[in-house]
């Protein structure tokens, strides 16, 4: 393991954010260049209502059609987009809506990302659960009936090394059928190790694909290195991981551009690795501890729905997760249209699931939907949809 080598402390705002650092795998992929150059070339203003109608009329959409659906010109077509998105979702997923919950096992972080509550300069209570504490959390979550778990850490290789995460995954496999991780980006061999431990899904939020903006938001730590993060999904696939998740944190930069790049990134990787299962998350910026002024700028609910529908129509087979950052009413409606995965019983703090674990560490962001697993289950059923606890077999 290269925990020492990729130690983050020496990466500061003086470090070039576009250069791989010692110990980071450079897989030499062409995908990043294509995503960035096509994103930069895209002019959303040039699309007209006719382009949007043409895109909606197609059976299989091109990246250009996708851009049309993300443009301002598509905004008046939101109802038609929702209707097409709904038809695609039902075709590919039937009535199924997958349920899961995130489990934060540590919130130490070496990165200085100015919009994030976990950032290393934010004075919050830091904590890391040991294996006994993790097992208590796992038991408490499993008792709710959930069978899919998303394991998360803050991004600290020194405090939460890969071996620690692997051990937690092996433990989680005793209680859950499906394990995903949302952790700092790894090298190919490390992804292979985690797959061996039982991980099948890897999600990495690129936050923004606008590298200039990225540089100004990520002032220190390994996360500052833009290409190492952008190519994480491809390294995960090369390491044998089955499914990869993509997301831009909408509101950090131009959200149309970021949503376009996110979709294109997934599209290109699926073409290169046809077996890859693709997932999108659709987070907007939220206020964080010690900074309640952060807000998702111009990404209001209608814009967010436009992005979600565009993802669905462009990649009808992709899983789409709807975040607890959104209010219950929005989430419930979106699973009726385009989202296929929803979290429940969420806590973004450390050690909050089990009564025996004292609440040890602060949360990453405020959630807007605090409903329990049962409540979300019932809300799904009330819409005539089917909550699904596990839809995967680890083989």
């Amino acid at each position, binding site marked *: 393991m290269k925990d020492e080598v990729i130690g983050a402390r020496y990466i500061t705002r003086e470090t070039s954010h576009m250069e791989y650092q010692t110990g980071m795998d450079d897989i030499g992929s062409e995908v990043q260049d294509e995503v960035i150059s096509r994103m930069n070339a895209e002019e959303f203003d040039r699309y007209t209502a006719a382009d949007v109608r043409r895109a909606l009329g197609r059976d299989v959409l091109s990246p250009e059609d996708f851009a049309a659906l993300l443009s301002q010109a598509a905004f008046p077509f939101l109802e038609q987009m929702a209707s097409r998105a709904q038809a695609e979702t039902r075709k*590919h997923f*039937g*009535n199924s809506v997958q349920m899961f919950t995130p489990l934060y096992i540590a919130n130490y972080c070496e990165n200085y990302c100015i919009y994030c509550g976990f950032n290393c300069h934010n004075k919050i209570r830091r904590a890391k659960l040991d294996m006994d504490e993790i097992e208590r959390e796992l038991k408490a979550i499993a008792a709710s009936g959930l069978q899919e778990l998303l394991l998360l850490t803050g991004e600290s290789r020194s405090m939460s090394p890969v071996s620690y995460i692997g051990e937690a995954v092996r433990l989680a496999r005793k209680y859950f059928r499906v394990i995903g991780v949302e952790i700092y980006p790894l090298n190919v061999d490390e992804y292979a190790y985690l797959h061996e431990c039982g991980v099948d899904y890897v999600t990495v939020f690129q936050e923004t694909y606008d590298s200039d903006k990225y540089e100004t938001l990520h002032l220190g730590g390994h996360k500052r290195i833009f290409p190492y993060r952008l190519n994480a999904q491809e390294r995960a696939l090369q390491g044998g991981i089955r499914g990869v998740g993509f997301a831009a944190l909408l509101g950090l930069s131009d959200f149309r551009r970021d949503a376009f790049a996110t979709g294109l990134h997934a599209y290109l990787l699926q073409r290169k690795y046809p077996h890859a299962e693709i997932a999108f998350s659709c987070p907007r910026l939220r206020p964080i501890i010690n900074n309640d002024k952060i807000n998702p700028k111009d990404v209001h609910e209608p814009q967010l729905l436009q992005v979600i529908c565009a993802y669905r129509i462009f990649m009808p*087979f992709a899983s789409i997760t709807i975040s607890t950052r959104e209010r219950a009413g929005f989430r419930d409606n979106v699973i009726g249209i385009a989202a296929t995965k929803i979290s429940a019983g969420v806590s973004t703090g450390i050690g909050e699931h089990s009564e025996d674990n004292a609440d040890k560490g602060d949360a990453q962001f405020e959630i807007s939907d605090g409903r329990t697993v049962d409540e979300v*289950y019932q809300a799904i059923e009330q819409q005539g949809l089917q*909550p699904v606890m596990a839809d995967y077999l680890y083989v």
Partner: protein
Amino acid sequence: MQDKLILGGHEFSSRFILGSGKYSLDLINAAVQHADAQIITLALRRANEGGTANILDYIPEGVTLLPNTSGARNAEEAVRIARLSRECGCGDFVKIEIMRDSKYLLPDNQETIHATEILADEGFVVMPYMYPDLNVARDLVNAGAACVMPLGAPIGTNKGLATREFIQILINEIDLPIIVDAGIGRPSQACEAMEMGAAAVMANTAIATAGDIPAMAEAFKKAIEAGRAAYLSGLGRVRETASASSPLTGFLQD
């Protein structure tokens, strides 16, 4: 004589195989009843040993389970899933689904042949989902398949018999039952497949996403019965040339 569908030595009077993957669980029973289905597929990746929302709790008694290997990307994974399914008490039937493409979910014929060989050897009743190719179908017969399940169109698309001509070739040339799987979006398409001589039809999305699920299940059932009756009655042959009213051979004597 009764018209039976025979799969691996088991007899069925219904020729409608119901998929289960896209339903609200409490509607599965109604769909089975109205479809009069005797076989229902089940993605093993959905089946839990107990727990909340376990699909196995919703499948009515007396229906033959047809576990599928969806999620498998190669023969080896399909074989492992099939063995797990047998261990879970899901019986000896297995529908092989091997996909290396997450976009169209098209089956990998080569890996499917390989998995069929292994599982037929182990005594499974193997029902392989495949892209309709005559050579592959012959290989599946030799590998010990109990039937051949060509796709009509990509899964979930409701596009009907996009591969019609090739399915007809399989029906003409292969002695095993040909069961049309995937893409059937309307009862009329199911009826057409049966008129062509398909032994059975499988459908999932078309029914699961209908406005009135029991009514649609029943519509499919009737369409399949009508198509089968038409096939048995000898309909369905379209002559390539007209038959002359004064036959060319009319002069023959002796």
